C-alpha cells in the first residue's frame, strides 16, 4: 500500500531524513516512533505530497508522490500535528469545504459528512464555530477532515497530543476501528500508544531507521537480557559480591541498603536459571530472600536502550 524506498530529505546542509526504507501493508497500522526532531513529520509530509524528497521514492497505492501528486492526494487523508482548521467557520461549514476540496461529488457531500461525524462523534457540535471548541473536539474535527473522503491511506501526525486521558483513549479506539479499511501511518513519541494500537513499529532517530518490528517483537528482542529486582536481608557488600559471582548475572545496575535490607537490580542473561541459583545461594548463606521479581521490559526500555546505543555508536 505504501512503499518508501531510500527516502532522503535535505534542508540545506541539514539531513532531516537519511535513506529510509519501509513498507506498510494494506489495512495495517504503522507506528512511527522517535524523539522530537527525528524526521517523523518530514517523512509524513513527503508521503502526503506536501514536499518532494531530495532523493528516493514514496509510492502510495501504486502512485509515485512526485510523478502523480494529485492521484496520491486523492487517496490520502492527512492530519498534521496542529489540525488545519479555519477557526472562523462552523464545524459543518468546514467539513463541507473539506469534502468539496477533496472532490467528493456534490450529491455525496452530505452523506460523507454524516458518516465522518458519526465516526468521530461530532454530531452535537456541528453548528458551533470551531474557535469555541475544546482542544479534544478540534482534534476530532481535524480527524473528520482526514477521513471524510474515505481515503485508502491515513497519515496522522501525533493524533493524541494535547488531549486529556479520556480523549486519548477515545481517539486511540477510533484509530483502531479505522484500521482494516484504511492503511494508517501514525507518528508519536508516546510508547504505550504504539503498544496499544500499532501492528508494526518503525523507530527513527536523526533521520535514520534504527529498528523495524512488531511491538511484541521489539519487547522480546530486549528479553535476551532480563532485569531482576531482589531484596535480601543481609550485609549489602557481601550480598552484592555473592550475587555478581552467580552464573548468569551480567551486572548489578543498582544497589541500595535500608534497615538491614539490601535491594539490588540485576541484569541477567535470559538463558540461565538465575532466579533459582540466586535463591539457593542466598539460603545457603542464611540470608532471607524478601522479594524477587522480573522487571518486564517495556517499549520504553527498548526505546531508551536503542536511542542510547545508537548514540554510542555515533560517538
Amino acid at each position, binding site marked *: 500500500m505504501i512503499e518508501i524506498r531510500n527516502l532522503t530529505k535535505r534542508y540545506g546542509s541539514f539531513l532531516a531524513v537519511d535513506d529510509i526504507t519501509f513498507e506498510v501493508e494494506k489495512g495495517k497500522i504503522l507506528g512511527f516512533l522517535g524523539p522530537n526532531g527525528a524526521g517523523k513529520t518530514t517523512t509524513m509530509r513527503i508521503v502526503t505530497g506536501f*514536499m518532494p524528497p531530495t532523493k528516493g521514492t514514496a509510492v502510495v497505492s501504486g502512485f509515485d508522490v512526485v510523478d502523480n501528486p494529485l492521484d496520491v492526494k486523492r487517496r490520502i487523508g492527512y492530519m498534521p500535528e496542529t489540525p488545519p482548521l479555519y477557526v472562523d467557520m462552523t464545524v459543518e461549514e468546514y467539513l463541507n469545504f473539506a469534502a468539496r476540496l477533496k472532490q467528493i461529488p456534490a450529491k455525496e457531500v452530505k452523506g460523507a459528512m454524516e458518516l465522518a461525524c458519526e465516526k468521530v462523534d461530532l454530531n452535537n457540535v456541528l453548528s458551533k464555530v470551531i474557535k469555541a471548541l475544546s482542544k479534544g473536539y478540534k482534534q476530532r474535527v481535524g480527524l473528520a477532515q482526514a477521513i471524510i473522503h474515505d481515503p485508502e491511506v491515513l497519515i496522522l501526525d501525533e493524533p493524541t497530543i494535547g488531549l486529556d486521558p479520556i480523549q486519548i483513549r477515545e481517539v486511540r479506539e477510533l484509530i483502531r476501528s479505522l484500521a482494516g479499511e484504511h492503511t494508517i501511518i501514525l507518528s508519536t513519541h508516546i510508547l504505550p500508544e504504539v503498544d496499544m494500537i500499532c501492528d508494526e513499529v518503525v523507530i527513527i532517530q536523526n533521520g535514520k531507521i534504527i529498528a523495524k518490528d512488531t511491538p511484541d517483537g521489539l519487547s522480546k528482542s530486549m528479553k535476551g537480557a532480563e532485569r531482576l529486582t531482589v531484596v535480601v536481608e543481609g550485609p549489602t557488600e557481601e550480598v552484592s559480591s555473592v550475587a555478581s559471582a552467580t552464573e548468569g548475572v551480567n551486572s548489578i545496575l543498582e544497589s541500595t541498603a535500608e534497615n538491614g535490607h539490601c535491594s539490588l537490580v540485576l541484569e541477567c542473561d535470559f538463558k540461565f536459571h538465575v532466579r533459582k541459583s540466586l535463591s539457593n545461594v542466598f539460603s545457603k548463606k542464611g540470608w532471607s530472600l524478601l522479594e524477587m521479581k522480573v522487571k518486564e521490559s517495556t517499549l520504553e526500555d527498548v526505546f531508551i536502550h536503542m536511542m542510547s546505543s545508537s548514540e554510542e555508536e555515533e560517538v
Partner: protein
Amino acid sequence: MKNVITIFNREFRSYFSSPIAYVVIGLFLVLTGVFFYLLMSSFLQYSANLQWQAARMRQPAPPVNVNHMIIRPLFSNISVITLFVVPMITMRSFSDDKKTGTLELLLTSPVTTAQIVAGKFLAAFSLYVIMALLTWVYPLVIVFFGDPDVMPVAISYIGILGMGAASVGIGVWISSMTENQIISAMGTFVVLLFLWLVGWFANFSSGAIGGFFQYLSIVEHFDDFAKGIFDTGHLMYYLSLCGITLFLAHQSIESLRWRS
C-alpha cells in the same frame, strides 16, 4: 474549475464572516464620499461665482463642464484611495493560511497551486469589485441633477477594475511571502505607494528612464481612463501586472514545498 470555485467560496465568505469586508467597504465609502462632497461643494461655489459675475456683466452664464470638474477628479481620487484599501483586503489571503497551518490542508488536498492562487485572487478581487461598484451613487447624483457625459463614467470604471486587478494581484503575491498579516499589508502598501510615486519621479528624470518610470506608474495609466479615453495599452499594463504577480505568488507557494 470546480476546485477554484470551492476555494473562492470559502475565501469570499470568510471576508463577510469577519468584520474585514464591512470595515473595508465602509471606510472606502466614507473616504470617497468625503471627496465627492468636497468636489461637489467647490463645483457649486465655482458655478455660483460664475453666475454672479455673469449677472453683473448682464451676460448669460458660460456653460460649465461637470465631467471635467467633478467626474474626472472624483475617479482620480477613487483610484488613489483604492491603493490604501487594497492591502487591507489582501493581507490575510495567504498569510493567514500560513500562520494557522491551513495551507497544509490546501497543499495536501487534490488541488493544484494554480487553482489555490486563482481562487484566492478571485475572492479578493470580487470584494474589490463590490466595493468599487458601490460608488455608482456618486455619478448617479450628478446624472440626476446635471447633464454629464455617461461614457467617460463607464470607461473610468473599466480603469478602476483594471487597476484593482493589478493591485489585488500585488497584494496576493506579497501575502504569499509572509505569515504575518501586518507585514503583508505594509509590504503591499509600500509597493503600491511606490508604483504611485514613481510617476512623480518620472517628472524629474528625462529620456528613457523617465519614460520607463512613467510607464511603471500605476496611477499614471489611470489618467486616460478618467478622461474617458479607452486605451487597450493601459488595460494591458494592468492585466500583465496582475498576471505577473499571480505567477510570482504561485512560484512563492511552490517554493515552500522545496524549502520549508
